[in-house]
């Protein structure tokens, strides 16, 4: 069964796209990640133009993040002030990112940007996850409790000006680090089609030293805000958002996420995390392969 995407101007097997949404949604429910970093390359492998994939994945992220944020909001586990500060940085970042996106696409370098940014990112994340899950599995096997990672005390952060009080996070810190983190994640959202949770969460825990209980909910609010604004900017500046593709991905994503949450409660997390690490590394290697291997045809074409 094929369905015609009006913006991408191509026909796709909708069942394949729905499965991608389901699968990535399942993983995001299981691991609490947005999954944009897997969905964008999957769509590109399928043949969706990089630009459309990057811009449309953000709808999937919006939906699954809202689904998750509602639960955190009910538990009052969101620091709206912190999310607001990061969002200001995020909006500036996404503005810069969408502008870069337009330049890259005009120059025919969008595929290169996607590959060049994804290879190191997925490589590093995959390696860290693989390392951690192997360590944990080994520790279990030998009967020792896994070692905990201690947050580093970043003295320089406390020397920065413009301090503000974040009551929910029980912090009194400068607004510059959250602004900078938000900016970075905003740029990434626009040019990579990711929510940025995998950067935000560790940065909030280890850099800002926020209490873990409010980190996920707060990062989700920031991600929702940036994803919504990026979608609007991509739609108005680059006409790169495909509503039919978005709808299929969103339906798959929200259903998959619910099954993922349920499965996560039952399954042994470490083993699944090992599989996810291998999956992430495989995607990185596939993209790296495309950059390094001599192409069969040196020429490629693009329509007007």
């Amino acid at each position, binding site marked *: *069964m094929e369905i015609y995407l*009006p913006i991408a101007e191509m026909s796709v097997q909708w069942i394949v796209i729905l499965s991608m949404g389901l699968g990535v949604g399942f993983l995001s429910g299981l691991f609490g990640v947005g999954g944009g970093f897997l969905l964008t390359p999957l769509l590109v492998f399928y043949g969706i133009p990089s630009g459309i994939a990057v811009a449309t994945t953000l709808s999937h992220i919006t*939906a699954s993040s809202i*689904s998750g944020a509602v639960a955190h909001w009910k538990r009052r586990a969101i620091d709206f002030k912190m999310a607001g500060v990061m969002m200001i940085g995020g909006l500036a970042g996404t503005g810069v990112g969408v502008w870069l996106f337009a330049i890259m696409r005009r120059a025919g370098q969008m595929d290169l940007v996607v590959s060049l940014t994804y290879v190191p990112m997925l490589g590093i994340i995959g390696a860290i996850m693989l390392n951690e899950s192997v360590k944990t599995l080994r520790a279990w096997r030998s009967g020792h409790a896994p070692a905990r990672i201690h947050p580093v005390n970043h003295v320089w952060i406390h020397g920065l000006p413009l301090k503000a009080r974040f009551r929910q996070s029980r912090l009194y810190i400068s607004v510059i680090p959250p602004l900078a983190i938000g900016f970075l994640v905003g740029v990434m959202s626009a040019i990579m089609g990711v929510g940025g949770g995998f950067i935000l969460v560790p940065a909030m825990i280890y850099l800002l030293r926020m209490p873990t209980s409010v980190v996920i909910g707060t990062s989700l609010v920031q991600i929702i805000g940036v994803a919504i604004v990026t979608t609007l900017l991509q739609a108005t500046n680059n006409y790169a958002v495909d509503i039919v593709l978005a709808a299929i991905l969103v339906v798959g994503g*929200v259903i998959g996420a619910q099954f993922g949450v349920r499965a996560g409660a039952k399954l042994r997390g470490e083993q699944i995390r090992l599989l996810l690490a291998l999956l992430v590394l495989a995607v990185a290697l596939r993209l790296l392969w495309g*950059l390094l*291997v001599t192409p069969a045809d040196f*020429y490629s074409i693009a*329509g007007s």
Partner: protein
Amino acid sequence: MRHALLFSLLLAATPASADQLVSGVSQELIQITSNYTGSDIVVFGAVESEPGRDVSGPKDVVVVVRGPEADVTVRRRDRVAGIWINHDAAKLSGMPAYYYLASTRPLKAIAPAEALTHYNIGLQSLQPDSVHSHHDYEPFRQAALRHLTHDGLYTEVPGGVEFLSATLFRAHVPVPAGVTRGQYKVEVYLFRDGDVESAQSTPLFVDQTGLERRLYNFAHNQPLGYGLAVVAMAVIMGWISSLLFRRPA
């Protein structure tokens, strides 16, 4: 439209006592809908000889379907610092977005190369109107022909025109999913002795229809409203899913 369908254009070169070519297409409007996976049109026609004229010589029919003109950007990858990146590019303007040629015999057997080039018949005689490139564009043109052929947008089918009787002929022309919207031209040429004796051109329209068309227009005419609609859809679906699948706290 019906009057435009037949007899719309005869080439000026038609001799006075030539065979008459009459042709038509099975469908003059193709609408791309959400479940469009490609379709076929049939180009049919008849060659009517003048009474008493010697018709023993070989006659050939060539059917050409040309899509609307498009800009094709061809990029060449080069190795820079160990990785393959798009480096040189050539923009070929005015190439047909779709080109399908069916003929009774291979083109080489029908007419000499000069005649084919003169009438712009055959993939190899396709030339861009203008080129934006720093280099010799011929390798880029060849790459474009190769890729578009591979994608099923450029096709040459010798033997694709069949004569059902001494005078009636027919050709199937596929219109695959993913063709560009716009006005197409269906050209039918009658060749005798290596030259065009008669020709006809009929317009064919390919358009998105229904929801697809409206969504495309929406996205391009009111991008902000369109973006808001996409966001609203994602927000509502995310919110509904959190209600439907409320998990025990």
